[in-house]
């Protein structure tokens, strides 16, 4: 999707549109499966040409997903920081002071409150942001990032993280998690119901007063089959959709990083430097991987450009991200756009 005359504003608009579309598809998938279930096994019915009944199963699945997410919503930040053994940055230590300063600068550029900054003791250069809203956000960098990147590159990375804060990406992904968990639960309902009612057929219903409507013969059987098919496919598609949303948000954060720094070269150099280092993160897990600026897990190297490998990845391929940034850089004639004559000095190497 490389476009000729694109600036970061246009990239951001495009990414936001695509995210909205994906979320709509998500909601449609969830609702279809849920209502199908309530139709077949629950109270939903079509009586006299209009929809009646209470979509109990849909709402239970939704409630389940929401409950799970509320736990991480409120307790999430502390848990995450503890799981990576993060510690606060110390002002007046030169390396740390530089990071604190850059966080401050990016918060100014993003017109956001300044998040608290933490440090992870890991040699691999990486960073993440988390928090339910901009007033409760934190960013965390690895020791490896501070050791290998200069000031300009750190600006690019932290700009990307501020973008996640500003655009409520953490909250978006939690919402997606609600839908994914809900869809999984609905699919589970189907399996259990099949088990107990002994098959898909059209007739096994408790209340016979509605036999004339949705459960007589062919209509009931057809809906039953559709529900089964959906139950099998939906969790799979839900996962794909979640990954697609995650990748869109990553592209959006890259474009927003350029919006903040007005310097495509900053993030470009940072990503190129990360591409050169091989080591995976020690403290990352499947649950936390999606938050990092580059996928930190071993063997999930974002340079796999194969179609299938990409589908299940939380992050777009590094090569693709670098390409887009290079296109932005060439748009500005290969020069970094100056924000009123700011200087980007190198980090004092410790």
């Amino acid at each position, binding site marked *: 999707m490389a476009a000729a005359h694109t600036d970061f504003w246009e990239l951001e608009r495009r990414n936001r549109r695509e995210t909205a579309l994906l979320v709509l598809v998500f909601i449609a998938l969830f609702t279809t499966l849920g209502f199908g279930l309530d139709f077949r096994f629950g109270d939903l019915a079509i009586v006299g040409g209009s929809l009646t009944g209470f979509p109990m199963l849909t709402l239970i699945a939704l409630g389940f997903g929401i409950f799970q997410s509320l736990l991480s919503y409120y307790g999430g930040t502390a848990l995450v920081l503890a799981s990576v053994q993060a510690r606060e940055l110390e002002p007046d230590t*030169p390396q740390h*002071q*530089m990071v604190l*300063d*850059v966080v*401050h*600068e*990016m918060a*100014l*550029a*993003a*017109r956001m409150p300044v998040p608290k900054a933490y440090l992870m003791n890991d040699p691999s250069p990486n960073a993440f942001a988390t928090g339910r809203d901009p007033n409760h956000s934190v960013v965390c960098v690895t020791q490896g990032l501070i050791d290998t*990147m*200069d*000031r*300009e*590159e750190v600006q690019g990375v932290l700009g990307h993280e501020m973008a996640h804060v500003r655009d409520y990406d953490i909250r978006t992904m939690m919402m997606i998690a609600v839908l994914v968990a809900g869809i999984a639960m609905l699919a589970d309902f189907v399996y259990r119901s099949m088990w107990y009612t002994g098959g898909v057929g059209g007739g096994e219903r408790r209340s016979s007063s509605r036999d004339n409507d949705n459960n007589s013969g062919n209509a009931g059987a057809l809906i039953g089959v559709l529900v089964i098919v959906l139950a099998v496919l939906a969790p799979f598609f839900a996962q794909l959709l979640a990954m697609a949303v995650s990748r869109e948000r990553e592209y959006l954060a890259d474009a927003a990083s350029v919006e*903040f720094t*007005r310097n495509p*070269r900053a993030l470009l*150099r940072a990503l190129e*430097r990360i591409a050169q280092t091989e080591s995976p993160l020690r403290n990352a897990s499947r649950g936390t991987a999606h938050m990092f600026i580059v996928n930190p897990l071993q063997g999930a190297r974002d340079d796999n450009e194969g179609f299938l490998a990409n589908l299940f990845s939380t992050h777009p391929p590094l090569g693709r991200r670098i390409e887009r940034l290079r296109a932005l850089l060439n748009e500005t004639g290969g*020069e*970094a756009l*100056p*924000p*009123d*004559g*700011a*200087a*980007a*000095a*190198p980090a*004092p190497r410790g």
Partner: protein
Amino acid sequence: MSGLLVVLIIVIVAVGWAVLGYNSLVRLRNQVQNAWRQIDVQLRRRHDLIPNLVEAVKGYMQFERDTLTQVVEARAKAISAPDQASRMAAENQITGGLGRLLAVMENYPQLKSDQNVLKLQEELTTTENQIAFSRQAYNDSVMQLNTRIESFPTNLIANNFGFKQAEYFQGAPEDQAVPKVDLSMGGGAPQTPPPPRV
């Protein structure tokens, strides 16, 4: 009867849209004002830093005494400036002086081995960056407000309630004279060649 209902719905929707539009204009205008004040906050922060900075630099760079004097004088002018124009001129002079100091620091390798000098360099860099980014944030806020004021249908509300477009912050010509030195050491093409060694 149903005709009346339709009219009622249309009126409710129109009023609702007008309220939302008005509130968004208020929000954006306040953001612009806040962003403008933020620039001032950053400039004052620099005023407060300068005395200590100058003290620290004096020991290392006697040869830059002229620049230091210029910065101190410009600061005094900025603090006591009677109007916006002379204030801005003074601030630009400070920017120029500090920028020169930063550039000079790069040309004396023996300075870089000193932790205090490095700390100073970082303070100067972040101060100038914070001022620059707060100006950028102001211009971005202005852009958002102006776009909303000009767009249909919000422009109808804007004109009726007296929302005016805000002015962008313009850098002064002196700003452009600050040497843009590529200070990154991790690869990438330098933007301008470093000044010749003294």
